[in-house]
């Protein structure tokens, strides 16, 4: 049985708590919440890209689907926020399952283009179906998360909620990383024919993983919607899908911590370079290119190699 490594999760929890207690400035809390959401999305993509070998350049679509399901149910129909989460999850899960059924039979460039095309179609629908989504001017009036008498309208409270969820997810992922399932996915990534001839139903497994990650990404979308209270299609465009690919790749494909590291580094770029935003995309593109070309395994991969050398 492989040992789970509780340290990253513990350290993360400690840092988050420390940040939450010491930083009173709502602005930085907001940045932290957004980065956590990026990190979760990037980690979801990492499971697809780094573990299962599914190239998806349409993750922003599922993020948006979650955000809009929760947003519309809350703003237009006045649902309690908590009830919208399962709907968002199931909605994205079902859509991903239907889309994945034909798409996941494709490989390589074809798969990349098909997911990209799907993302674009969803983006256009968000813009055009203004009677539901509010169209390009966005959806306003999204409520707050409230349950058991707890109210998460303020950024501090939301930060705490988000941190708890974040650490929980990281812990679950660590469990996943040390379970049989992670082997199963890596086998599929590496050779579908070998996995097939060892009795793994690769198509079914890929479909379930794809749909599950879509659902997970949609829940992140809901969390995002209830945090910013205003969503518009711009946040769910192809650009975001590509940013996620960059985060997962720079952080390290196939390492659970990869998505988190990538999201923190790239998520901080706009904060650090607020005055020189022109260079933001340059940094994104440059880091991505350098990582792909010279640093296979990204930052997490390099770190783990260094650690192994020391040991």
């Amino acid at each position, binding site marked *: 049985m492989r040992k789970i490594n509780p340290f990253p999760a513990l350290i993360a929890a400690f840092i988050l708590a420390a940040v939450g207690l010491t930083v009173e400035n709502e602005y930085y809390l907001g940045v932290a919440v957004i980065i956590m959401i990026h990190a979760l999305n990037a980690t979801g993509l990492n499971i697809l*890209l780094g573990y299962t*070998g599914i*190239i998806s*350049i349409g993750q922003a679509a599922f993020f948006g689907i979650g955000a809009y399901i929760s947003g519309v149910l809350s703003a237009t129909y006045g649902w309690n926020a908590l009830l919208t989460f399962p709907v968002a999850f199931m909605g994205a899960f079902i859509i991903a399952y239907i889309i994945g059924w*034909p*798409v996941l039979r*494709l*490989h*390589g*460039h*074809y798969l*990349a*283009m*098909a997911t*990209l*095309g*799907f993302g*674009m*179609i969803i983006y*256009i*629908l968000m*813009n*055009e179906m203004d009677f539901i989504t509010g169209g390009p001017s966005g959806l306003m009036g999204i409520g707050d998360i409230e349950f058991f008498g707890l109210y998460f309208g303020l950024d501090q409270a939301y930060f705490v909620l988000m941190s708890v969820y974040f650490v929980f997810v990281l812990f679950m992922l660590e469990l996943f990383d040390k379970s049989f399932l992670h082997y199963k996915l890596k086998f599929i990534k590496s050779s579908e*024919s070998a996995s097939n001839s060892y009795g793994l139903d690769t198509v079914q497994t890929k479909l379930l993983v794809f749909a599950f990650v879509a659902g997970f990404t949609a829940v992140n979308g809901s969390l995002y919607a209830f945090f910013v209270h205003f969503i518009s299609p711009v946040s769910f465009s*192809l650009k975001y899908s*590509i940013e996620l*690919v*960059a985060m997962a*790749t720079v952080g390290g*494909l196939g390492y659970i911590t990869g998505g988190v590291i990538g999201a923190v580094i790239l998520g901080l770029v706009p904060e650090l370079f607020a005055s020189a935003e*022109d260079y933001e*995309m*340059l940094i*994104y*593109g*440059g880091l*991505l*290119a350098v990582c*792909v*070309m*010279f640093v*296979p395994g990204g930052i997490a991969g390099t770190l783990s190699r260094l650690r192994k050398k020391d040991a």
Partner: protein
Amino acid sequence: MQFLYSGLTGGSIYALVALGYNIIYNTTGLINFAQGEFVMLGGMLIYTLFAVFGMPFIIAFPLAVVTALIVGLLFERVFINLVRVKSDINLITVTIAASILLRDFAMHIWGRDTVTVGEFMPVKSIELPGGVISNQSIMVIAVGACIAFILHLFLKRSKYGRAMRACFDDMTAAGICGINAVMVRVMSFGVAAAVGAAAGVLISPITFVTYDDGLMIGLKGFAAAILGGLGSFWGAVAGGILLGLLESFAATIMPSGYKDAIAFVVILLILFVKPAGLFGKRMAKRV
């Protein structure tokens, strides 16, 4: 009928972009996600040479294309060649990264604003049955067709063209027969960039140029390539024109906001139903 004329104009641009994808795919088997950026580059270069420096069009056009060709060669040397592990995921990601960088460099050089190239000739509208077409559009279609034809001759007749086709069939065998496979790969990126840039030059007076134009036109060009059948020369041309017509026709029968979705619906449908494309050859399945 009007949709036919505007569809043809857009379609011939898509066809040229699709040809760019094809050239690279045929020699290296990869899809260059940065292909659209060369179209933007073409537009920006002609803006610089023609509108800013005031060169005559007849000199500025080839100069822009040659410059793009050089950028294409460098592109391969820097981005594709240096990738250590040439897996699908890595090659896809590196071309995406490259497209971000090209776009960003363009933004720094030419700014975020849309630029106008001006007109290559006095604009006139010509009345045709059922609609009008401007002489600019006719030029786009005519020059586009010429470029496609020259390209066809180049691939069929010239030494490089034949080497390119040999490489696609069997890289090792081509190498044994004395073809410099690396050279061919580099050349294919150069030619693809040149064709893309030519498309960008042609369309620039009609649509203006903005630094982030490449993304959309690149994706639509790819849709055209898929529609016609990736790897098939005349398939790309037919796919491009068909897509142009479809888009333009769709805008007349449904809310025009959905127009952009057409290309992506086409990608998905073709990939589901007939991945080899309408005119492509069936690919052998490898286990």
